[in-house]
């Protein structure tokens, strides 16, 4: 049934349709209403789950992984500082090979304090061993949560997954969303049955024991190889999803790339704006396309290289920064150079802390890519597309505000 849902409501609906058994989450803007919706589903009897109220995000993820150890389907959600507080337990969840799904309404990390979006919070958790999917709109939020459970619980994967969507731009936007019925969802995502030893008080076992040096690295290798191998599982799940729900997804989603000289790549909701900008730029005769990176972990190197194959110049949109280096997505794309040599790749940092990524922003970045295409050299490794140095000019700020 078509409903008018926010991204947060779509995330909660995804968890409801997946018939999760345990939810533990602590509210934080912009994720808060996910927790509220789930609490009301449980209170109204629409979802037969245990809702564990906790006093912090560290407890939320700890309760979730405890619950997951018993072999049930679990759901958790967070943002920003809350996600950062979970950091050490995130490694536990992946090391214990728990198929937890977490919704993340992306929000920048303080300081200075902000409640608005960028991808720094989830990208800072890049190496925790969780799969990471980045989505663009509310329909994709709901659908990707279902796909995430299917992938996470596959015995070839058994790893937790973050489904990341931009705070406000997706979490608080309301859009028409097709909400599937439970029977369809059950066909795609049957009840979860753990086929491995689980936490059971009648049959006590120890979990999370110490691994000595001859073993530890092997656990990491196995985790890495499962993650790399999950590409196949993700593709199968997406195909099956399309068969049942008639909506198709891919790890790299392309738009107008076939004949493109310039391709723009990036994550999240801003890629919707890029799509609109491309329509406008194409009408002026520019051969431009885009590649939306939906799966950031595992990173689909081959698929991305395939998408970028024909391009002469590639612009990466980074809604994040690794200070002192470059944008984080840029580094990943550089690693595809093995498959795509002789390409010029330009790094744009933009949209941090909710700075609006507009059609103008994309056109400005495109202007720079056109210059590169015609042979100009870039003076800087990282280009801050919408930078405005005036606002942080310490002397001017001092004069106006301090006197």
């Amino acid at each position, binding site marked *: 049934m*078509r409903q*008018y849902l926010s991204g947060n409501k779509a995330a909660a609906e995804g968890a409801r349709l997946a018939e999760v058994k345990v939810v533990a989450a602590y509210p934080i*803007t912009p994720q808060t209403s996910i927790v509220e919706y789930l609490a009301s589903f449980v209170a109204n009897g629409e979802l037969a789950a245990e809702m564990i109220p906790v006093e912090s995000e560290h407890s939320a993820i700890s309760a979730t992984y405890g619950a997951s150890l018993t072999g049930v389907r679990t759901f958790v959600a967070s943002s920003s500082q809350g996600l950062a507080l979970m950091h050490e337990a995130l490694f536990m969840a992946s090391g214990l090979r728990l198929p937890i799904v977490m919704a993340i309404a992306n929000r920048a990390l303080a300081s200075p304090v902000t*409640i608005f979006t960028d991808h720094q919070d989830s990208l800072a958790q890049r190496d925790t061993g969780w799969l990471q999917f980045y989505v*663009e*709109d509310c329909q994709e939020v709901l659908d990707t949560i279902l796909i995430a459970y299917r992938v996470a619980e596959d015995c070839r994967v058994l790893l937790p997954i973050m489904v990341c969507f*931009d705070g*406000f*731009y*997706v979490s*608080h*936007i*309301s*859009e*028409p969303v097709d909400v599937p019925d439970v029977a369809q969802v059950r066909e795609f995502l049957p009840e979860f049955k753990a086929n491995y030893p689980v936490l059971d008080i009648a049959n006590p076992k120890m979990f999370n024991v110490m691994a000595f040096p001859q073993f530890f690295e092997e656990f990491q290798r196995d985790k890495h190889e499962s993650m790399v191998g999950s590409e196949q599982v993700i593709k199968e799940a997406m195909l099956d999803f399309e068969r049942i729900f008639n909506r198709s997804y891919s790890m790299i989603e392309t738009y107008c790339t076939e004949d493109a000289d310039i391709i723009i790549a990036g994550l999240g*909701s*801003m890629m*919707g*704006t890029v*799509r*609109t900008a491309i329509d406008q730029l194409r009408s002026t005769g520019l051969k431009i396309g885009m590649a939306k990176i939906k799966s950031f972990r595992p990173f689909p190197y081959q698929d991305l290289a395939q998408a970028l194959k024909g391009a002469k110049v590639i612009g990466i949109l980074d809604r994040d920064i690794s200070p002192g280096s470059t944008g984080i997505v840029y580094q990943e794309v550089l690693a595809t150079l093995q498959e795509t040599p002789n390409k010029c790749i330009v790094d744009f940092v933009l949209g941090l802390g909710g700075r*609006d*990524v*507009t*059609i103008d922003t994309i056109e400005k970045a495109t202007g720079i890519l056109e210059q590169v295409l015609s042979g100009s050299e870039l003076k800087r490794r990282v280009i801050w597309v919408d930078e405005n140095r005036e606002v942080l000019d310490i002397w001017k700020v001092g004069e106006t505000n301090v006197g």
Partner: protein
Amino acid sequence: MYEIRLHGLGGEGVVLASELLGKTAMKQGKFSHSFPFFGTDIRGGVVKAFTRIDDKKISIKSYIYRPDIILLFNDILLNDPDVTLGASSSTLMIVNTRAGIDSLRQCTAAKQGAKVLPIDATELGYKIFQRPIFNVILLGALLRIREVVAKDVLVKVISEELPERVVQGNLTALEEGYCSMEGVLKDEASVVS
């Protein structure tokens, strides 16, 4: 694509109004989205919201910079640069104010070429609700001037979506807002088909 920007203060129902428009458009078989922008303030802080309506899927996810319509819930913000941003001769602005149409000619948006129309929605709100509730009144006024969504579908959305105890009041509010703009010339070629 139709782009509507709503401005007001927290508690005035800006976000709900923007969602009602989007939801009504969806019920008419159109594509739409609506989203708010607010800071960490609660009631009384500045709020804006955006609604887009189109016949095809809307992929853009940025704020509205060239609004077809500005709905201003509180004239305290009349000349706020954020409110008047992008107002032009193709913009219709409806303002909740006691000021008359003549005094509004001096406001920034009017100087930028926008067609600015006043409505004393607060007063109407007191009449209907005995409290300053006026978001749906403004929607009624908008629909009288420019039929961005079908009024009868909005009636259905209000009846189905709002809590039962406030449905009747809001249906009255919609009608009162609509009728208050009688006599103001309806825009031609403004109906989203």
